[in-house]
């Protein structure tokens, strides 16, 4: 049963990736413009050489099959704009950056969200609850680029006030570079998770076994950690998968503003410069990444909560 389900999901995943690749391929070629054109006029001989190098001299259908063949063997070709770099290298070098940022964002969102949610649930209906819930809605109502810009401004003021570099303003490479962008990136998820954990916590608080535990004389910190938190984490954990996927694929703005060499930034550049191979490589990679996450989430649902029937899938 389990194996059949997993195989089924994986098959669908593969078909979905194929679909993404095909859709991207044709959408990209439908974009007007010429990927080879450059600032200065080039001679026909040079142009012919370039077309042959990238296989653009062949009909579109043939280019499609060539691409599919290469994709199956795991090769996305060489970038148009970064002439000496293979797309595989670009993904391999820059995706870990996006992923690190994404995981840090999730970590912040998870810790902050559960904390805020627990506080809100504990003081249900009182001012801390209202404050947390208002901040949650407010946090998702400010556009990310505004938060990012303001965050930079604050860091600059902070560093100026402290007359030393407390936090770097931009860049990448060390642990200090991660926190602020990750916080900005994870803020939406943080807000979402705090609502989720508040609700879950409320449900747990009114359940029989908490009453039973209280009756047995367990209270305070021990009750919170051993009974409430553990159980309230279930819905939060099940939501982490989609959150990871969304965050790692959606960090463009943060990457742009904080000068982080993540994959998202490369994608935006590639689209603007019609870098065919990089566009294909990144979309297919991200598509596959999303699909894998979704499959993993589906499987983990089955593992965590036996009430969910595996064969039905999620749709």
């Amino acid at each position, binding site marked *: 049963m389990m194996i059949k389900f997993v195989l089924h999901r994986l098959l669908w995943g593969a078909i979905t990736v194929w679909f993404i690749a095909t859709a991207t391929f044709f959408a990209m070629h439908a974009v007007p413009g010429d990927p080879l054109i450059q600032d200065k006029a080039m001679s026909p001989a040079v142009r012919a050489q370039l077309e042959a190098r990238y296989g653009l001299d062949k009909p579109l259908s043939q280019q499609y099959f060539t691409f599919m063949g290469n994709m199956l063997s795991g090769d996305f070709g060489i970038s148009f704009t970064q002439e000496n770099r293979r797309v595989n290298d670009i993904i391999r070098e820059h995706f870990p950056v996006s992923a690190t940022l994404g995981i840090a964002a999730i970590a912040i969102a998870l810790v902050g969200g559960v904390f805020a949610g627990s506080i809100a649930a504990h003081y249900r209906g009182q001012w801390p609850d209202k404050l947390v819930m208002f901040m949650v809605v407010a946090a998702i109502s400010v556009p990310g680029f505004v938060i990012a810009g303001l965050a930079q401004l604050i860091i600059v003021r902070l560093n100026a006030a402290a007359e030393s570099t407390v936090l770097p303003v931009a860049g990448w490479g060390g642990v200090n570079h991660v926190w602020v962008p990750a916080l900005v990136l994870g803020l939406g998820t943080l807000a979402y998770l705090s609502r989720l954990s508040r609700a879950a916590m409320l449900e747990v608080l009114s359940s029989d076994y908490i009453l039973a535990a209280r009756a047995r004389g367990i209270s305070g910190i021990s009750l919170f950690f051993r009974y409430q938190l553990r159980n309230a984490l279930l819905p939060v954990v099940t939501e982490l998968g989609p959150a990871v996927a969304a965050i790692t694929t959606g960090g463009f703005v943060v990457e742009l503003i904080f000068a982080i060499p993540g994959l998202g930034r490369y994608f935006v550049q590639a*689209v603007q410069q019609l870098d065919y191979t990089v566009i294909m490589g990144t979309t297919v990679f991200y598509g596959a990444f999303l699909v894998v996450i979704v499959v993993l989430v589906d499987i983990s649902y089955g593992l965590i909560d036996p009430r969910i029937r595996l064969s039905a899938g999620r749709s």
Partner: protein
Amino acid sequence: MGIPVFRFAPWQPPILPDVECAAPPSWRWSPSLLAAAGTAMAMLLFVLVGPLVWQQDPSQQWLSQVSSGPTSGIYARVVGPIPAKGTGNLSRLTVIESNTERVHLAWPEVVSVERFRLYRAKQHQSGKGLPLWQGRDRSYTDELQLRRQIYRYTLVDADTGIMLFSTETRPEPAISVFEAQLQGLIPASAAVYPEYVRLPAHPLGTDALGRDILARLMAGGRSSLFVGIVAPLLFISFGAIFGGLAGYLGGKFDHFAMRSADFVVALPFLLFMILLRIAFGIGPGEDGILPLILAMLLLSWPSSARLIRGQVLALRSQPFIDSARLSGVTTWGIFRRHIFPNVLPVLMVAFSFAIPQAIFTEAFLSFIGMGVSPPSTSWGAMCNDGIKTLLSHPGQLLWPAAMISISVLAFNILGDALRDTADKRSGGVGQ
């Protein structure tokens, strides 16, 4: 689960367990719902009725007052093209003409100084300020974005850096003849013109091209809210019809519908949004709103399709539908009388959560320069313009950002309240 996982990702529908809504729930008007609905209405009024009250053209450029703070209507001197000539014997740095179109300065010869450098600073600023010019002449006309404030000019020996002279001046408000003619304040061919003309007020100031920010907020809001409301309306209607049919008809059509929804959901949203936006292209002169809505429709319909399909599936097996069918009500009738009223609350909730997402998506695309194209504007595009001048003129970013935030906040609270009402259970997360 109305809060999106990621701020720019499409809204994901809650996976509703068993639907047990026999009758549409009754609406409760809580204070927060009222406040949110009021704010949303106020926003709509602001962008729709506002322009009737504040009748400035949002694309009119007052180059004589770029990036100015809030102003009331002022009189400005009309200055001709030829600057006043320097006068004979000077003993120090002298202001010969001083208005916001130009400050004309002249200074005497200084022994052993070959090249001069001229700086301009605001009155209370420390340091020499902005280097304006370097050269051998003994006069200079400063025309660089002058405002009505006191300036201090400092003349320095360019080679040694020794300070030679310093003087202060406060330019009077002015407008060039050319601009006054362009704006129709004085006739184009007239040889004589009035000494002063009256300029309009700008309660929120002007942007970097001298356009009235208040008028632009209204015009920008129209695009933002138009996209924010029309796009969700379209993709939710399409999704609802598609999903409703899939749920009701079942079988092959259902399978097809759900698999296509799976595919579309699997596309990386933002990546495809950008790709589609470029693929549809915007021709010259178009405002780019239509391709934007089209791209959103193509990518965002599956969530509501799934949502409605689930609802319809659950409803289809309810006894009251069976009895309606047995008593000879047509399919259309069943849809109209029984199914539609029952899914409406869910649709309303989905709609009110889709609006902030659509506003964000538009703002984000405009922010990276792939949204509406000029002369149309939107709050996101205004943010994009404003972020460059965040340090010197924060208002140009903060106003449109505040407008986005307030509308999104209002629609989020509205959605929350609607959901709480539609939802029988407490807790506020919707399941």
